[in-house]
C-alpha cells in the first residue's frame, strides 16, 4: 500500500521544535559567539530548514524510494546507459575505512594501499584501452571528453600548431559537441550514412589541417561497430589530427578489440556503465581517460606513480593541463571499477562483452518482427528500433510505447536518441539479464502493439503519476517549495 502522507514534501511534514539528531555539548570553553566572530558576519537565525524527527525522515525517504524503478527492482534497458547489475560486494568494499574515510591531502606514506589500488586501475584501464597512460581525475564521461580535448589543445600548442576544429558525427552524444565548445573549438558535424556509419565522403570534405580531433563513438550509438575505423583513423592521422574515442559503449568490446589498436589516440571510460558503478539516480560517475604516450605529458595532475614498490602522487608534470576538478578524482567510483575488473579477470571481461552482445542480438531477433530495426539483423551491445511506421499507421509514438512498457513492469528504453533515427527506441539489455527477462520484455512489447492506440496515449496507468505536464513545468517554472503566503 502506498503511504502518501509520508511522501508529502519535507517542508510540509516539518513542525517547529522537532529534530533528527543531537550533538554533544561543547567540551571546550564556551564564550559568547560575538567574541569569536564579528557580529556583522553572524546570521540572526539559522537557515529556515525543515524540522523532522528521525523516524519521519526515514519513512519519508523510504517511501520516496518505492516510487523509483531501478536495476535492483526492474529490467532497465535504457540504451546508451548500460544499466547492468551493480554488485553488492562493491558497495561494501568501497565503504571500507581505507577507501571511504580517507582525506585527499593525507601524506603519501599513509595512502599506500589505496594508491596501489589506483595505480593498478590506471594500468588495467591502459591495457583494456590499448593505450599508454591514464588519468583517473575526470568526474564524469563529459568531463573526460573535455579533459582529453584540453590535452589535445596543449599537445598541438606544444608543436606550434593551432587547429580550431573538432569533427563530430551527427549520431554522437550531445556532450561531444558541447565539450568541444567548452575547450574552445568550433564543432563541425559529420554526417552518418543511412546504415549509421560515418559518411567517409563527408568526413573527407570536412577534414583538413584545421582539424584537431575527430570524436567517434565506436561501437556507435546505434550499437554498430564502424568497421571503417582503421580507414577513418588513417585519414585523420594523415591530416595531422587525433582520434578521440567516446568510450560509452566499451561494454561491447571488452577484451575483444582495443581502441588503441584500432586507431584511437585518446578515450574516456564510463566506469559507471562498463564497470558496474551504480548510476545513483543520475550520478556520480567517473570519466577516466587513456591516451597515447605522446599525449601523456599533458594529462591532469596528479597521477599515481610507482617507485621501487612505493606509490606516490606525482604533481611535477610541467606540461600538464592542470586540473579539471579538485582533489584526486571520484575515488569511490574508481574503487568499484577496480573491484569489478578484479572480479572478472581477462576472461571474465571478455565474457561480459560476449553476453552483452548476445543478449542484445537475441532481443533484436525478438523485437525486429514487432518494430522495424533500420540497422539490420545484427548489433553490438544495443540496437535502435523505430516507431515511425507505427506513428504513421496507428498514431502511437515511441513515447507512447515507452510509457506503456512501464505498466508492464519494464523501464523504458531510451527514446528520441540518437537523433538520426525517427521515433527511435534505443534498447540495451546488458549481459546481466536472463533470457526469460528478455522474452518477457519482447512479449510485453508484442502485447502493447496489439492494444488500441488510445490505450497507449493514456499510459502509464499503474505508475504513481502519469504524463506530467512538461510544458507547464518549463513555462511556469516552480523550482523550489515556498511557504504559502500568510493572509
Amino acid at each position, binding site marked *: 500500500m502506498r503511504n502518501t502522507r509520508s511522501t508529502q514534501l519535507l517542508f510540509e511534514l516539518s513542525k517547529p521544535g522537532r529534530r533528527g539528531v543531537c550533538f*554533544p555539548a561543547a567540551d571546550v570553553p564556551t564564550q559568547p559567539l560575538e567574541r569569536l566572530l564579528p557580529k556583522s558576519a553572524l546570521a540572526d537565525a539559522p537557515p529556515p530548514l525543515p524540522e523532522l524527527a528521525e523516524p519521519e525522515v526515514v519513512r519519508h525517504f*523510504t517511501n520516496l524510494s518505492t516510487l523509483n*524503478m531501478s536495476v535492483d527492482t526492474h529490467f532497465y534497458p535504457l540504451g546508451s546507459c548500460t544499466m547492468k547489475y551493480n554488485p553488492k560486494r562493491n558497495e561494501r568494499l568501497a565503504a571500507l575505512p581505507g577507501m571511504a574515510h580517507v582525506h585527499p591531502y593525507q601524506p603519501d606514506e599513509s595512502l599506500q594501499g589505496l594508491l596501489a589500488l589506483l595505480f593498478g586501475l590506471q594500468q588495467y584501464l591502459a591495457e583494456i584501452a590499448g593505450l599508454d597512460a591514464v588519468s583517473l581525475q575526470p568526474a564524469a564521461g563529459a568531463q573526460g571528453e573535455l579533459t582529453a580535448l584540453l590535452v589535445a*589543445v596543449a599537445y598541438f600548442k606544444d608543436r606550434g600548431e593551432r587547429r580550431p576544429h573538432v569533427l563530430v558525427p551527427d549520431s554522437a552524444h550531445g556532450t561531444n559537441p558541447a565539450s568541444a565548445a567548452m575547450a574552445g573549438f568550433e564543432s563541425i558535424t559529420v554526417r552518418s550514412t543511412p546504415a549509421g556509419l560515418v559518411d567517409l565522403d563527408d568526413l573527407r570534405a570536412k577534414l583538413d589541417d584545421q582539424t584537431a580531433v575527430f570524436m567517434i563513438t565506436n561501437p556507435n550509438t546505434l550499437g554498430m561497430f564502424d568497421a571503417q575505423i582503421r580507414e577513418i583513423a588513417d585519414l585523420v592521422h594523415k591530416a595531422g589530427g587525433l582520434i578521440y574515442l567516446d568510450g560509452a559503449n566499451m561494454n561491447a568490446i571488452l577484451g575483444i578489440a582495443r581502441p588503441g589498436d584500432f586507431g584511437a589516440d585518446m578515450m574516456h571510460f564510463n566506469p559507471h556503465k562498463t564497470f558496474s558503478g551504480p548510476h545513483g539516480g543520475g550520478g556520480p560517475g567517473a570519466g577516466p581517460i587513456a591516451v597515447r604516450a605522446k599525449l601523456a605529458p599533458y594529462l591532469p595532475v596528479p597521477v599515481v606513480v610507482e617507485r621501487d614498490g612505493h606509490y606516490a602522487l606525482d604533481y611535477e608534470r610541467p606540461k600538464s593541463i592542470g586540473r579539471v576538478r579538485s582533489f584526486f578524482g571520484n*575515488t569511490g567510483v574508481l574503487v568499484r571499477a577496480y573491484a569489478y575488473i578484479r572480479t572478472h579477470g581477462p576472461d571474465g571481461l571478455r565474457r561480459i562483452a560476449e553476453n552483452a552482445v548476445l543478449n542484445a542480438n537475441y532481443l533484436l531477433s525478438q523485437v525486429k518482427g514487432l518494430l522495424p530495426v533500420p540497422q539490420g539483423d545484427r548489433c553490438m551491445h544495443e540496437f535502435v528500433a523505430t516507431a515511425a511506421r507505427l506513428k504513421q499507421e496507428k498514431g502511437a509514438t515511441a513515447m507512447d510505447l515507452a510509457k506503456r512498457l512501464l505498466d508492464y513492469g519494464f523501464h523504458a528504453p531510451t527514446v528520441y536518441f540518437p537523433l538520426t533515427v525517427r521515433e527511435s527506441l534505443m534498447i540495451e539489455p546488458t549481459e546481466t539479464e536472463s533470457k526469460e527477462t528478455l522474452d518477457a520484455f519482447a512479449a510485453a512489447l508484442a502485447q502493447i502493439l496489439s492494444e488500441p492506440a488510445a490505450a497507449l496515449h493514456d499510459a502509464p496507468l499503474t505508475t504513481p503519476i502519469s504524463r506530467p505536464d512538461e510544458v507547464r513545468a518549463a513555462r511556469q517554472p516552480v523550482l523550489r517549495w515556498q511557504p504559502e503566503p500568510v493572509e
Partner: protein
Amino acid sequence: MPYLANTAEDQQAMLMAIGAGSLDELFAQVPAELRLQRSLNLPPALTELELTQHLGELSARTASTADKVCFLGAGSYDHFIPAVVDAIASRGEFYTSYTPYQPEASQGNLQAFFEYQTLITQLTGMDVSNASLYDGASAAAEAMLMTLTATKRYGRLIVARSVHPEYRQVLDTYLEHLGIELVTVGTPGGTLAPADLAAALNNETAGVLVQQPNFFGCLEEMAELAEVTHRAGALFVVAVDPISLGLLRRPGDYGADIVVAEGQSLGSPMSFGGPYLGIMACREEFVRRMPGRITGQTVDRHGRRCWVLTLQTREQHIRREKATSNICTNQGLFALRACIYLATLGPQGLREVAELSLRKAHYAADRLAAVDGLSLEFDRPYFKEFVVRAPRGLVEPLLERAYRDDGLLAGVPLGRWYPELADCFLVTVTEKRTRGEIDRLAESLSHIAALVR
C-alpha cells in the same frame, strides 16, 4: 561468473534464434585484423571472498579516520555522518536507478531533487538551485563561465588568492582557451581587501569569485566586496562552506549573484577526494543560464502534483554545442545524501555542528599558538580552520612525526600552493574532534617542535 544468468543452453537457444553459429560470429562487424589476438593482460579473477580479503588488505595499508585523528580540511571535511544518511542512500531503489528520463518511473528521485533544490535555497538564501554538479571546484568554474554570458562582458574574471588553490587551477584550466583574462588579486593579510578588489575591476569584468570562509579559514568582508563588485557592474560569485551557514550570514543576504559550494560536508564521506557534490544556486534572473539538471514542479494529466526535469533547452542533449555546459548528469546520490543530512539535522542541528566546529577550532588555535615556536599566521576572524606558522623548514618534520609517532593527521602544508607560506600549515577542527584529541595535537607538536629545533 557471478553476474551472468545465461547458461550454456540459454546461449545455444539464443544463438539459434539469432541465426548465428557462434558467439564469435556476433562480432563479425569487428574486422578480424582489429581484434585482440590474445587475452587481456590483467590479473586473474578473484572470488568474492578473495576480493574481500584483497581490498581489506589494501584498506588496512591505508590510514583512515577509523584509526587516525584528522585535523585535515582544506575543502574536504571529517564531519559526522548520521546513520540515517547511509541507511537510506544504500537503498537499491535510489542508488541503482538513473537520471529521471521517465518521470513516471522516477518520482522518488525527482521529488528528492526538488527537496534538495529547496534546501539549498534555504541554506544559501538564493532564489534557485540546480540539482547539483560534480564538485565545488568545477561548480565555481561553471559559475564564472555563467557570469560571462550573463553580463555579456568577455574581458576579465577576477578571483581572490584566498580562494582554494585547486578551485583556481580548475578555473584556469577551463578558461585556458577561451581568451578571457583571469586576474588573481593577492590577499596578503589573509583576506581580500575591498580596495584591492576595486583596483582590479574594470568595465570588462564579468565576475568576481570569493570564498567564505576562505581557504585559510578566514572570514572575508562579504558585504563590502559585494558592493565593490556590483558598483563595477560585475557579478559576485561566492564559494561557501555549507556547514558554516549554520552560523554565518547567508550569501543571498549580502548580495551574492551566484553561490557555489562543495557539498561533501553535508553527509558524504571524504573518499580520498570524491565523488563529491557541486552545489550551485543563483538569483532568479540567471536560471536559464545555469548548467546542469534542474527539477521543476508540475501536475500530471490527472492534476496530481509531480516533478520533472525542466528547462532542458539549456542542456547538451538538446542544444549540443550551444548548451550552457557539457555536463550531462548531476551527482544524484550525493544530492540525496545532502538532502537526508539537512532534513535530519534541521536548523538547530546545523547550527550546533557549526558552533561546535567554531568553538573547538578556536580552542585548538589557542592551544597551538601557545606552543613554543608556533604562531597563528593571520590576525583575522576565522571559522573552523586556521593557518599555523612553524619555525623555518620545520613544517615537514613536524607533520611527519606527528603522524608517525602519534597517529595525528595534523595539518595540510601550504607551500605547494603559497611559496610565502612554505613554513605554514592549515589546521581544521570539526565537531568530531574532542578536547582530548586537540590537547594531544598541541602536546605532540610541542614535543616534536622541541625535539627537531
